[in-house]
């Protein structure tokens, strides 16, 4: 029987008690103190010796006797039996197993009492009095001499100074009210803080107080019993797990059919805490909440009805080219258009019927075509490969033809009225078509006529026409001023304006674009539009500044070309996204008034081929019609 309470010390003690009990002396003498010596007196009955018992824990014997024989352990009862026995035995609680002697000891009542007293920290015997009156062993009465001969000190007869000081201090503290004997009142006083509101009218000089925004009011979904459509399905709830932490809805609506089934809200304290944090940790700024109709953000544009006519619908299609039409050009009278295509042909069409008048095979992909702006000299310039061909189109009566033939005749020595002296280009007579072939070193990308048709500017990858100016970067596009002898040349980043008479740089227009693709000049000559490869269209007012007056982000893709109408306030841009925009661009003669720009129409119809959409757009010289050439080898005419 293992008794947990009994430790090793107690064992020894109990052993002693046992011994004493055997002597039938339950009340030990008070004088005979239970000294440690008593332990030594009693001989230990086992002969194991002073050996830790755990050495033999797993053995069958407990030690050896004096003759060296094993002392065997007693057979232990199994647990069930011992339990049953203990249950039957009413005295089992006072039985203790003595491991050392390997026997069970039953404690007597007195011993239990003693144990209890010991546990409480008292003397083991009940009748031991720890506070017994002191019996002085020294007899004072008949002593002749005192123990000390010193005279009685003075301080035995006077008051203590320090005590007096302490008393004085306390008295003073009481008198001055530092020490109060009644406890301070618990009750708090309530004042009506806002008793008279009138007195608090003066303004505080503090900063403006920004009140914290109020917490959001609950919606239908926070109800304990929301309508069914507010409750997400299980799949939706699962899909929340895939969301980012901050996107995930914090609150998932649930439905309870009765109020008693609503459980306590787990995050009540947390929500309150977060609100508290917001109140004192969040920076506050006054922000104007914009509560406007988004439609009101759109600028007030003049009514498009008033700006008519402008091209709106596709009226005619000119089909015949086998490949993308790169360029078109209208004749000065507006009767013919010429188109150059990558299939190496130049075609001339009658505008009103769509009949193809002539097909000129050039052999090389035609990049650019341009009519001579003079109505009496219908010469067509076409850029194909590294050549520029001045072609006789065969239009007009005999007189005109004779004149053309005269113009297109090249002497052996290439000194003609055409262009400046260009050692970069050689003038040759082209026998096949009866025109002039200007041979350049590199492929030519654009050709532009001067207003009188006397001069021609060509652009190739290498600068060919001899302009006595330095260009920073490759030229992209060039255009002549409609009335003065001024040339606009655009590089990728900027547009340079040169005076050809004085041969000097007049102006640089900073576009701020990534890559300029095309340029066009207003017939009055003061306004320039520039199209870029990022789809932006810049309107420059040259009198205003060298920076764009307006940037229109209209196309999502590259702008391929821009064009002004010669007489009407219209301009257009075409882009690789297959659309062309028509704008109204009114320039006033009054210098104080800014030009009015209004987008009018988006013209669709061209298909995108190999990522290229509309390649070129040109206005009819008289009518408000627009020609567009597409990469889908179709030319379209849009009429009002």
């Amino acid at each position, binding site marked *: 029987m293992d008794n947990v309470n009994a430790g090793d010390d107690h064992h020894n003690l109990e052993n002693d008690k046992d011994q004493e009990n055997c002597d039938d002396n339950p009340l030990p003498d008070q004088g005979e103190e239970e000294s440690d010596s008593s332990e030594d007196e009693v001989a230990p009955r086992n002969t194991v010796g002073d050996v830790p018992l755990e050495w033999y824990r797993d053995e069958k014997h407990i030690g050896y006797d004096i003759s060296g024989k094993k002392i065997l352990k007693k057979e232990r009862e199994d647990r069930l039996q011992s339990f049953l026995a203990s249950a039957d035995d009413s005295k089992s609680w006072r039985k203790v197993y003595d491991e050392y002697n390997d026997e069970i000891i039953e404690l007597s009542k007195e011993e239990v009492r003693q144990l209890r007293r010991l546990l409480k920290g008292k003397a083991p015997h009940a009748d031991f009095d720890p506070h017994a009156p002191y019996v002085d062993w020294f007899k004072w009465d008949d002593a002749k001499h005192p123990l000390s001969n010193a005279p009685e000190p003075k301080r035995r007869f006077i008051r203590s100074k320090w005590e007096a000081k302490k008393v004085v201090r306390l008295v003073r503290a009481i008198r001055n009210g530092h020490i109060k004997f009644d406890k301070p009142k618990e009750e708090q006083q309530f004042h009506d803080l806002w008793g008279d509101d009138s007195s608090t009218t003066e303004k505080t000089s503090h900063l403006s107080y920004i009140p914290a925004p109020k917490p959001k009011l609950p919606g239908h979904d926070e109800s304990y019993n929301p309508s069914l459509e507010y409750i997400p399905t299980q799949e939706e709830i699962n899909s929340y797990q895939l969301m980012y932490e901050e996107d995930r809805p914090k609150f998932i609506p649930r439905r309870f059919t009765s109020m008693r089934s609503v459980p306590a809200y787990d995050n009540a304290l947390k929500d309150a805490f977060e609100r508290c944090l917001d109140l004192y940790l969040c920076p506050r700024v006054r922000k104007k909440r914009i509560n406007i109709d988004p439609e009101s953000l*759109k600028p007030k544009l003049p009514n498009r009805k008033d700006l008519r006519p402008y091209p709106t619908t596709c009226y005619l299609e000119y089909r015949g080219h086998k490949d993308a039409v790169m360029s078109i050009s209208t004749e000065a009278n507006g009767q013919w258009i010429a188109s150059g295509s990558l299939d190496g042909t130049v075609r001339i069409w009658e505008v009103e019927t769509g009949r193809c008048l002539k097909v000129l095979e050039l052999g090389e992909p035609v990049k650019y075509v341009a009519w001579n702006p003079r109505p009496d000299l219908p010469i067509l310039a076409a850029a194909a490969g590294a050549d520029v061909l001045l072609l006789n189109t065969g239009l007009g009566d005999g007189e005109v033809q004779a004149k053309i033939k005269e113009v297109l005749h090249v002497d052996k020595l290439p000194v003609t009225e055409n262009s400046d002296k260009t050692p970069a280009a050689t003038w040759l007579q082209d026998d096949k078509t009866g025109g002039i072939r200007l041979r350049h070193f590199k492929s030519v990308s654009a050709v532009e006529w001067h207003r009188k048709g006397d001069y021609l500017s060509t652009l190739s990858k290498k600068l060919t026409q001899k302009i006595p100016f330095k260009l920073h970067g490759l030229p992209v596009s060039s255009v002549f001023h409609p009335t003065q002898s001024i040339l606009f040349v655009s590089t990728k980043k900027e547009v340079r304006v040169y005076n050809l008479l004085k041969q000097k740089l007049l102006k640089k227009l900073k576009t701020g674009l990534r890559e300029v693709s095309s340029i066009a000049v207003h017939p009055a000559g003061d306004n320039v539009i520039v199209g870029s490869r990022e789809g932006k269209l810049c309107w420059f007012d040259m009198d205003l500044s060298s920076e764009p007056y307006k940037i*229109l982000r209209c196309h999502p893709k590259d702008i391929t070309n821009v064009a002004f109408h010669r007489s009407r306030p219209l301009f257009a841009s075409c882009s690789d996204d297959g659309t062309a925009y028509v704008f109204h661009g009114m320039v006033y003669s009054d210098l104080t008034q800014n030009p009015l720009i209004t987008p009018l129409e988006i013209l669709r119809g061209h298909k995108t081929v190999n990522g290229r959409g509309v390649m070129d757009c040109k206005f009819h010289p008289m009518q408000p019609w627009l020609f567009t050439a597409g990469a889908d080898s179709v030319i379209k005419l849009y009429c009002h």
Partner: protein
Amino acid sequence: MVNKVTRKKHYRPPGQKKEGNAARYVTRSQAVKQLQIGLPLFRKLCIYKGVFPREPKKKVKGNHHTYYHLKDISFLHHEPLLEKCREIRAYEKKIKKADAKKNKERANFLIERRPTYLSGLLRIIKERYPKFIDALRDLDDCLSLVHLFAALPAQERLKVEAKRIHECRRLSHEWQAFISRTHKLRKVFISVKGIYYQAEVEGQKITWLAPHALHQILTDDVDLTVILNFMDFYEKLLAHVNKHLFNSINLEYPPILDPRLEALAADFYALLRFFDANTRTSLLNPQTSSSSQFGQVDAEDSELRLAQLQHQLPLNEPTALMHLVEDASGMDEDEDEDTRECKKLFKNMKFFLSREVHRESLLFIIPAFGGMVSWEGDGAPFKESEKTITHQIVDRSTQTHKFLSRDYVQPQWVFDCVNNRIILPTEDYLVGRDPPPHLSPFVDNDAEGYVPDYAVTLNKLKADAKNEILPLPGVGKEDLDDPQKLLDAGVIDRAKAIEAAEMKQKMMALEKEYHDELKLELQGGKYSSAISNVDKQLPDQEKEGGEDTNLPDYQQMAEDTDKLSKVMMSRKKKSLYEAMQIGKRTKKGKIDLLHERKKKHKESHKSQ
């Protein structure tokens, strides 16, 4: 070549003063250093004083700092509370020292006389809210937190003292009693988080959340010191707001409650009784002084005596109480229409709450709307067997014993009635049925773009109820249809009649517009929704174009016009516009989701 010596970006010669944001804003650590206090004390002061970080236009020290305005910090610097806090800290050291020296007597002596900064807080309240209305404006958070604390378990280990919890309970009850007594409650909403109440006091809408009366858990992830600092302030604030409100209706503060009712934990009811008793005395006092010359003195006196003896009245004496309530209701003249409407909602109705019903909220709400209420338990004003009870509120699945004279409804009925300001039919809310969905009164359904089905039926019911009431005279609503008749009857003067006529015209115009729009919509079919008003400018032309190509692609045209107008927008406006469109789209997405779910539910319902 030019700038070989690298200079600091914002170089300022030594000795020159800072300017701009650098001079106006300091970071938090700078502020703490400047004030020479620790961070916890700084936080505490910020909470008490209501000092918050601000967002400077240019953050001089970098993005990851909190910036305080220098004025705010100097405002804290001159705060007497700062000095007081230092004093308290020194005092705490004294106690500690006495403890360490085993001078128990002195330690006790010191502990008893600990200084508090109560008076400092009062001054701060007055400083932060110079006018009462300012205090009301900021009361939302205060009320929510006090109501939450009233439901928390006291835990000394976490410094949530039982005393504070009791104080919060008391304060919340006082506030509710005032709101209920003056009929200022406007909206209530049972949510999963608790019950939202909205009251209107002095024109201010005050919304607060009271958690469900269930055991709340104190979690570890919350820093209670912050909340307790807020509580220190809020307790004082609410106590003084209550004081002001009580005084405004001639009541003493703090109220003296019936100890018997208090012991029964019916302190809210005790408060209401206190209200009734005292308003009567205050109401009668001036009368007695004025009419004392006349012979009615005796009768008046006896009545007054009766009221004063209210505390000693036997608890269950419904007749006396009813008498008092009725009398008290007749006294306030300066009420707005809303209050009058609220007061009348449950008039002449008697409610009885069953044992399982959440008592506190209903005890608050029903009297706020003019009803009378009792509950099962000690101290209740009337018993379940009372014959005049009209509604019994039950929150269980079945009710075995039923009186035929009363309706057995679920608690949601009361809430829905209150939110719609009509007495709803009780059929849907009877015991054992699943009640109809409980809708939030804080949502503007039309602005949200989605109207739940039950909101439609509620609106119909409301309209029906109004039609019944409108013809009744003296309701206070102008009869728009016939101002001339009213003029004839001399009910309203000429100006009012003109006003009414104008209003009618306006209404007619609006109606006509609406009808026109409807017609247009019908004609336009699918495209009208997509086409914006810009498009209306050139419908003829576009239609012609459409006929030419035989493909009237209206969608494309709408897109085109949209694009064209976008081309001319400035970048700023365009981004704003696009952001708005995104917002619209997300909102629409949410609504679509709701519609879709609804459709699914309907289908599943049908298939079953």
